[in-house]
């Protein structure tokens, strides 16, 4: 096995991984997913803490205090790309910076002191306290520390139980974040919830200002967003979440559980939406209008869709001409994102021939599979060697993924679109769809690729 692993198909012969790679039309079985990664493999996955942090971090006026050694806080310091219209508190990085002494004697006292200092400096409306691997092992009772601090200071000090090693799957961290959010928004006993006609927008993180784009659309058709979970949100706004009439769920991976809890506890129904790509936007706006059952809302939605698509279509057509016949690969965190990208690439005439995710669920892979042509490779928890193999084998022109995939794609002379934390431009809405198209074009058709395939003139002469 594997004598020339860096650049050949040999690398995919990890037996334990066979079930995680299927070719649509050829393999009968479903993708095996949700397993722990193999020890000794190069996984692109992160950890439970990471999952919790990315979901909660966009709560802008909260202090996010990472209880653990310094690395966990450093590596998640302002990497999310979520924008704020108000407080910038969330962009600071707070850590208890556990040292050897604390690991031996316990870090609870230090955590409590840290909270004291933070409250005296900043008086934040809430503090999220994240537990990390080492905290899970030494057994600090962060719940007790948080409870006491909440009592003393009369603010929400909320434990986020995100000890990293519990799973290699970020989804477990999404759940920890959701539980923390639920704790934040649950009204005190005896409080009566006043319902209004607004929507909560779950699984929207305001990357590059995406929430603001959707907010504009909804406002135009006559619907207000109560609060987004968690993009550009504040503690006060989140606490009003139970008042909304409907929950829109965009990133299902991170927010599905919370949406179902909110349905149970506060009677708020939920609706899956997706504002990436013109087809998805239209479908989403229509289903929201249908839910409200208001003719005026429907009418305004149709007007918006018609106006925007007629503006977008000719512009997309220009890119379609350049991109027709190009082949794409996708490797992203969740299946929701993968599906949205598949649709958008198809709209551009780009054929998607490889799709993978870090945390997709079985039923999501089934839906995804339904959108793809026969022969498309579907991978769960891919390692870079596998990605490399399929990028070459399938003659990919452009890849969509996150930062770790970017450098790999470039090294292979393949264009790249960031659909993760390094992205700075909003890709939601019609303007986002156009931006996406432009990004695919400039990457797949960069003049640089021409130079890559040339040799130095001197060398040619020799």
């Amino acid at each position, binding site marked *: 096995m*594997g*004598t020339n*692993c*860096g*650049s050949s198909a040999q690398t995919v*012969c*990890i037996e334990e991984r066979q079930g995680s790679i299927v070719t649509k039309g050829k393999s009968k079985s479903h993708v095996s997913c949700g397993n722990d*990664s*193999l*020890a*000794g*493999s*190069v*996984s692109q*996955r*992160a*950890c439970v*803490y*990471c999952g919790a942090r990315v979901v909660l971090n966009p709560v802008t006026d909260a202090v996010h205090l990472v209880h*653990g*050694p*310094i*690395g966990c*806080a*450093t*590596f998640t*310091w302002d990497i999310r790309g979520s924008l704020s219209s108000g407080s*910038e508190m969330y*962009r*600071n*990085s707070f*850590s*208890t*910076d556990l*040292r*050897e002494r604390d690991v031996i004697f316990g870090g609870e006292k*230090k955590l409590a*002191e840290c909270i004291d*200092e933070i409250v005296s400096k900043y008086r934040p409306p809430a503090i999220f306290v994240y537990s*990390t*691997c*080492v905290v899970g*092992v*030494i057994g600090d009772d962060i719940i007790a520390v948080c409870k006491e601090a909440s009592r003393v200071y009369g603010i929400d000090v909320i434990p986020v139980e995100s000890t*990293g*090693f519990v*799973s*290699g799957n970020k989804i477990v961290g999404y759940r920890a974040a959701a539980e923390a959010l639920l704790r934040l928004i649950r009204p005190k006993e005896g409080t009566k919830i006043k319902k209004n006609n607004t929507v909560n927008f779950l699984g929207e993180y305001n990357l590059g200002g995406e929430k603001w784009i959707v907010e504009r659309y909804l406002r135009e058709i006559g619907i207000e967003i109560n609060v987004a979970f968690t993009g550009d949100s504040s503690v006060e706004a989140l606490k009003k979440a139970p008042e909304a009439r409907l929950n829109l769920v965009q990133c299902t991976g991170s927010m599905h559980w919370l949406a179902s809890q909110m349905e149970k506890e506060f009677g708020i129904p939920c609706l899956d939406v997706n504002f990436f790509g013109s087809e998805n936007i239209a479908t989403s706006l229509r289903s929201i209008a249908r839910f409200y059952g208001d003719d005026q809302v429907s009418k305004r939605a149709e007007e918006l869709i018609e106006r925007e698509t007629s503006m977008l279509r000719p512009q997309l057509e220009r890119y379609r001409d350049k991109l027709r016949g190009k082949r794409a690969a996708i490797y992203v965190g969740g299946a929701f994102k993968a599906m949205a990208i598949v649709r958008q690439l198809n709209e551009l005439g780009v054929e998607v021939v490889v799709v993978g995710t870090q945390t997709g669920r079985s039923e999501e892979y089934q839906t995804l599979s339904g959108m793809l042509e026969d022969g498309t490779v579907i991978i769960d928890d891919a390692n870079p*060697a596998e990605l*490399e193999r399929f990028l070459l084998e399938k003659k990919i022109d452009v890849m969509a993924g996150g*930062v*770790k995939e*970017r*450098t790999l794609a*470039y*090294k292979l*002379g393949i264009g790249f679109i960031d659909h993760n934390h*390094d992205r700075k431009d909003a890709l939601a809405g019609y303007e986002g769809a156009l931006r996406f198209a432009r990004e695919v074009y400039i990457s797949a058709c960069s003049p640089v690729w021409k130079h*890559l*395939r040339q040799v130095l003139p001197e060398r040619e002469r020799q």
Partner: protein
Amino acid sequence: MLECVPKETVEHTVGKINPAKTCQPIGAMYASLGIHGCLPHSHGSQGCCAYHRMHLSRHFRDPVLATSSSFTEGTSVFGGAANLKTSIKNVFEIYNPEIMAVHTTCLSETIGDDVATMIKQSEVPEGKCVIHANTPSYKGSHVTGFSNMCKAMVTYLAQFDGGARKERVNLIPGFVNPGDMREMKRIVHDMGIDFTMFPDTTDVLDSPLTNKYEMYPKGGTTVAQIRDSGNSKMTLSLGSYSSDAAGIALQEKCGVPCVPLDIPIGVKATDDLIMALKKGFGVKVPDELTIERGQVVDTLIDTHFHYQGKRVAVFGDPDIVIPLTEFLLTMGMRPVYVLTGTPGPQFEIRINKMLDGAGITERKVKAEGDLFDLHQWIKQSPVDLLIGTSYGKYISRAEDIPLVRVGFPVLDRAVHPLMPIVGYRGCMRLIEMISNTLLERRDRDSLDEDFELVL
């Protein structure tokens, strides 16, 4: 933006706010990548490995591969031995590196995994090797992790064969960019001295785009070269925090005398490196280097009025900040705030001595500090220029002070890992960056009537 630091002095003694350091394993991973055909392995849960790869990829803009022991809840209860053994088996079967460099994480350290024993009990294929370094994240910083892995290279690999010493110098370059390592190699090469540099990330993390992906690029010090470093005539360890431990270990294990020096940033530190080589090998300093030195001095005279007397705040890794501060003093600047996140007493002692010598009395110097500290100092009494990593950009924006990006990590600027700040050429680049940043600032701030072509 980020106006979250109060102006009045507030008590800040517990934990870190906006850290100026990160944890050991990322330094160990970076050092490991400087061995040819090496696959770094993170013995712990997956998140750490993913973070470190991501951070290094962002700084170097090149792929960084590393495997993980993929700890789960069971592992943290029963220990990581089974995971490490499986990892070693899988890594050699699947990825086939020459060498696997294991570093621990806070998790595997806390549960007390004895990695050395686990490696001994594992089956390692003929001709391959596995080394390890203990890198608990709750001790030291990423610089310590780098140092620990360099030391592991010596303790696992270096050998003295007992014969005559080879006319060769070992260079331990410190936690610097591949561009810096390349420049150091050029200087030693130009002096006509045979050398082994380890670790060496040139041609690994600054590798050319060739349309072909190499999992193990051509760069890196080979295992054979590290092994043979025990037969060299001398070792120069550059940077006391990142390189001395390996240099001393090599001296103790193989009897190679170690000369500790600063990373050659600035005229003095570069002079020291060249003179140590000259003395050690009795060679002449080539004209090329003498000319370069003269050019630096010429440039300093040509441009001194751009920056002389300006107040500057410097932060970053101690081995970079120490010689950099020295160079800033050579330039006539006033480093009034000097800070590192890495703990250790040497930093404050050395910086204070330098600043005493330069008569800079009103100053703040701190090891194991954070950027909240630095920001507060600047709020209380501002500076003209900030020099440090990308993380300085928050202070830069909040206080409207220009930032020159130097050190690790730089996540928001291009080309820096390829361009040296060491050697005389590095001096030129530092002068260029500092001068031009201040000049651009002057242009930007000048009123129409003061706006001039020549500055």
